[in-house]
C-alpha cells in the first residue's frame, strides 16, 4: 500500500472510535473461543471475535499501525454470528464487524474487481440478470464474473477453483425467467405474502422457489412477487460497501415498499437475517420516510419454514411415517444463531411421510460458507466444510435438508467432491414433493 496521508489516518481513527461504545462492551472473557468455527480450525486469537474486537480497539486508539493486517483478520470471518449468540456480554459483534469493514474499506478503497461487481452490476439487477442468463448458456465463458458476483454474496464459487466443481453452477433458467411476477389475492389461508426468493434461489436453485410457490398456492396464500427485485445486500455489506448496499435497498424499497401483504417471506436464511436484522441498522437514516419503510419491511421478514409451521400451523402431528428416506438437517447460522429457529425446518421436512429424521453431530455449526469468506479463504472454508460433510455422511442419511441456499451450495460442493450420494434439499422441497 502507498503511504496514507496523516489526515486520512486521523479520520480512520475517528470513525473507528465511533464504534467505541460497542467495542468497550467486550469484556475479553474469551467465551467466543468455544463456538467460533474459524478459531476451531486455526486456534488463532486474531480470528476469534475477542481478537478482532481488540484489534479494532487498538487501531482506533492508534496503538497499532498495521491497517492491512487488521483488515485481513477482520475479513477472515464467516459473519456466522455464533460468537454474538453466545456472548455473555451481549456484544453486537456482527454490527461491529460490518461497520468496521465499511470504515476500513473507505480508508483502503474497495478492490477494483469488487467495485466493478457491486457498482456496475449488482446494483443494476437487470444487467446482472442478463449476464447470468448468458452465463448459464455458456458457462465456461461467462461464468467467471458471474461467479464472482454470486460468490461474493454467499456461495463458494471460487474463480480459481472452478475446475473442481462437480455440479452446474447456474440453473438453466432462473426463477424470474420462469415466473416474472405474481399478484394473487389471499385465498383459504386468509393471508398474503410478498415473496423474496433472493439471488441464490433465483439463479442457482429456482426449484426451491418453485417449491415455495407450489406450497403457498396449495394452502391458499396470496402471493405478491414483483419483478426487478434486487439482491438483499449482504455481499455489499460484508465487503464494507455501504453505498452499494443503500442502492440495493432503494431498489427493493421500490419493489416492496407500501405493498399490501402480511409477511415478506424468503426461503433463504441469509436473506431473512439480512432484511430483518441488518437493513434497519445499516440503512441511511436521513429520511424518516425511508426509515419507516425499512423498519416495516424488516418487521415483516419471515422464514418460509416459520410461515408454514407457526403462522399457517401446518405441522407433522398425525402425518404417517414410512421411513423410506433418512433425512438429516443442517441448521443454517442465519436461522439458528440469528433467530433461534431450529424446530421449524425439521417439522417442515417431516410433513413428508417418507422422511425419517436423523440428527447429525454439530448440526448447528456453520458449513463454512460465509459471504466472500469462501472466496478469500478457500482452505479454511474447505476444512470447515469437510467436517460438516463427515457429520452428514456419518448419519447414513440419503438426504440433507437445510433452509439456506448458501448452505445448500456449500454442502452440495463438499459432498460431491467427496463423491457421496447424498441429496441436498430445502425442507420446503421435501414438503412440496408430496403435493400433487
Amino acid at each position: 500500500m502507498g503511504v496514507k496521508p496523516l489526515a486520512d489516518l486521523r479520520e480512520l481513527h475517528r470513525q473507528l472510535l465511533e464504534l467505541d461504545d460497542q467495542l468497550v462492551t467486550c469484556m475479553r472473557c474469551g467465551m467466543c473461543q468455544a463456538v467460533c468455527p474459524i478459531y476451531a480450525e486455526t486456534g488463532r486469537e486474531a480470528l476469534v471475535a475477542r481478537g478482532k474486537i481488540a484489534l479494532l480497539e487498538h487501531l482506533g486508539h492508534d496503538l497499532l499501525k498495521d491497517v492491512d493486517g487488521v483488515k485481513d483478520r477482520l475479513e477472515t470471518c464467516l459473519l456466522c454470528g455464533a460468537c454474538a449468540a453466545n456472548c455473555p456480554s451481549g456484544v453486537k459483534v456482527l454490527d461491529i464487524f460490518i461497520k468496521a469493514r465499511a470504515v476500513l474499506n473507505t480508508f483502503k478503497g474497495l478492490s477494483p474487481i469488487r467495485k466493478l461487481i457491486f457498482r456496475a452490476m449488482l446494483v443494476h439487477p437487470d444487467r446482472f440478470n442478463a449476464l447470468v442468463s448468458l452465463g448459464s448458456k455458456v458457462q465456461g465463458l461467462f461464468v467467471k464474473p458471474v461467479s464472482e458476483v454470486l460468490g461474493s454474496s454467499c456461495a463458494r464459487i471460487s474463480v480459481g477453483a472452478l475446475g473442481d466443481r462437480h455440479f452446474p453452477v447456474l440453473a438453466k433458467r432462473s426463477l424470474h425467467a420462469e415466473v416474472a411476477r405474481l399478484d394473487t389475492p389471499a385465498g383459504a389461508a386468509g393471508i398474503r405474502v410478498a415473496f423474496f426468493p433472493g439471488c441464490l434461489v433465483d439463479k442457482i436453485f429456482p426449484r426451491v422457489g418453485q417449491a415455495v410457490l407450489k406450497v403457498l398456492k396449495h394452502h391458499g396464500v396470496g402471493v405478491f412477487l414483483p419483478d426487478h427485485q434486487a439482491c438483499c445486500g449482504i455481499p455489499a455489506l460484508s465487503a464494507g460497501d455501504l453505498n452499494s448496499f443503500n442502492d440495493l435497498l432503494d431498489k427493493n424499497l421500490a419493489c416492496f415498499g407500501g405493498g399490501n401483504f402480511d409477511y415478506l417471506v424468503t426461503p433463504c436464511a441469509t436473506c431473512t437475517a439480512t432484511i430483518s436484522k441488518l437493513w434497519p441498522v445499516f440503512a441511511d437514516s436521513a429520511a424518516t420516510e425511508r426509515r419507516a419503510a425499512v423498519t416495516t419491511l424488516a418487521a415483516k421478514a419471515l422464514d418460509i419454514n416459520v410461515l408454514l409451521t407457526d403462522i399457517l400451523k401446518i405441522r407433522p402431528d398425525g402425518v404417517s411415517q414410512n421411513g423410506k428416506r433418512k433425512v438429516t438437517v443442517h441448521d443454517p447460522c442465519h436461522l439458528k444463531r440469528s433467530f433461534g429457529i431450529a424446530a421449524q425446518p425439521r417439522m417442515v421436512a417431516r410433513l413428508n411421510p417418507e422422511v425419517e429424521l436423523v440428527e447429525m453431530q454439530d448440526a448447528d455449526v456453520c458449513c463454512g460458507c460465509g459471504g466472500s469468506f469462501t472466496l478469500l479463504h478457500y482452505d479454511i472454508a474447505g476444512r470447515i466444510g469437510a467436517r460438516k460433510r463427515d457429520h452428514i455422511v456419518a448419519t447414513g442419511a440419503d438426504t440433507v435438508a437445510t433452509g439456506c441456499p448458501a448452505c445448500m451450495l456449500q454442502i452440495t460442493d463438499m459432498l460431491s467432491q467427496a463423491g457421496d450420494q447424498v441429496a441436498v434439499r430445502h425442507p420446503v422441497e421435501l414438503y412440496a414433493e408430496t403435493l400433487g
Partner: protein
Amino acid sequence: MLNPSLIEQFKHIAGPANVMDGEADRHCYSYDAAVLTAVVPALVARPETTEALGKVVRLCGDNGLPLTVRGAGTNLSGGTIPDPRDGIVVLTSALNRIIEINEADLYAVVEPGVITAKLATEVATRGLFYPPDPGSQSVSTLGGNVAENAGGLRGLKYGVTKNYVMGVTFFDTTGERIVTGARTVKCVTGLNLSSLMVGSEGTLGVFSEIILKLVPPPAAQKAMMVLFDDTAKASQAVAAIIAAKIVPCTLEFLDNFTIRAVEDYAKAGLPVEARALLLIEVDGHPAQVADEAARVEAICKQIGATGVQVARSAAERDKVWAARRAALSALARLRPTTVLEDATVPRSKIPDMIRAVEQIAAKHKLLIGTFGHAGDGNLHPTILTDRRDEKEYARAEAAVGEIFEVALSLGGTLSGEHGIGLAKSKWLEKETSRGTILYSRRLKKALDPKNILNPGKVLGWE
C-alpha cells in the same frame, strides 16, 4: 525488538507457521479477561509438541527472555499479560491431546492445552467424572486450571483443581524436564513438586503433561431454588444444612441486585423482591438424594424461606440452573465494563460481606451485583462500570480495595479462585506477611534465577 536471528531460532523450533511476530497477531495476545492495560508481546510461539515446548522454554532461558504461557487467556487477574521488555507468549492451544484415560485406575493424562469441558465430556462418555467446573470450562485449558488452581460450582463437595492433580511434568528455565507425582493414589517419591506447581500462575515452571484424578459420577441429583427476604436467613440456612451433615454439591447464592438483573434479562419469573436466592443441588445415591433434598427443604422452610421450588424433572432442573448461568450475562450487559471480583470469606461471614459490599456500592455510587458460591464463602462481587470514565473508574478501583479490606478483616482471602496475577499482587503482603513474600521470592529466585517465568505475577516486583 527481538533480533532477527532469535526469531529464526523460534521458527526453527516451532515451525514458521507457529511463530507470530507481525504486529496485528501480537496485539491479540496482549490482554486476558482481567480489566488491565494491554501489553504487546515481542513474539508469540505455538509449539505443537511438548518437545518443542521444552526447546522454546530453553531458548527463552538461554537468552533471558521473559516468557508467559497462555492457555485460553480467560484468567481474571492479568496472569497472561506479557512482560513489557520483549515478552514472549507461549501458547498451549496446539498441545491439546488427551493422552490416556484409565478407567481401571481412575486417572487421565493430558497435555496442558486440553479444554476443561472436552476432558469432562470425554470422561463422561466412559462413565467417569472430572468434577472441577469453572464457569469458563467450555474454553479454559487444564494447564490454566492447574496454574490458577481453578474452582467452580462443585467446590464445596468435590473440591477444586488441586484435589485432582496427581502429577505434573514441567520444564524449568533450562528446558530440563521435571517429572513429579505418579499414576498411583499414593506417592511419596521425592519432594511434592506437583503441589508446588498448582496455583503457580506460570511463575515456577511450564507444564507439559498433567495427571488428573477421576471419580465415579453420582447416580442422581436433585436441584432446588430457595428464596429469602433476608440475606442473614439465607446464610443461616447454609450453616444449618452443613450442621445437619449434608454437603450439597452446589450451593449458590444470588443477591437482590443480581436477581433483579437476571429477571430483567432472562424473564425467568424470579421474584424481584427476594433479598437472596439459594440454588441448592444434592447428588449421590438416589435414596440418599431424596432424603437429603427433603431435609434441605425442611431446613430452609424452618429458617423462614419465603419460597422453595424443587425441580421435579430434568427440564425443571435446567430451569433452576438457568438463573445461575444467566447471572454474569445479566450483570455484564448493564454497563460497558465488568470487574468480576473474587473475595472469599468463611461462610458464616457471608451476610457481613454482603452488607459491606452494599455499603461500598452506595458510598462510591457504583452498581455492584454479588453472586457466588455460598457453600464455600467464595463470592463474586461484580462491579459494573465504564473504564473510560476516569472518575467513576477510580471509584471502582477504590471499591475493589475496600472489598479486599473487608474480606481480610472477616478472616477471608483476596482470591478464592481467580488468582493473584498482576491485579492483586500489591495486596498479597497484607493478607500474608512480609516474611511470606520474601520466602516466596527466594524460592522463585532459586528456581528461576533470571526471573523469566511470568515475571511480576503473584509476587510483584522487588
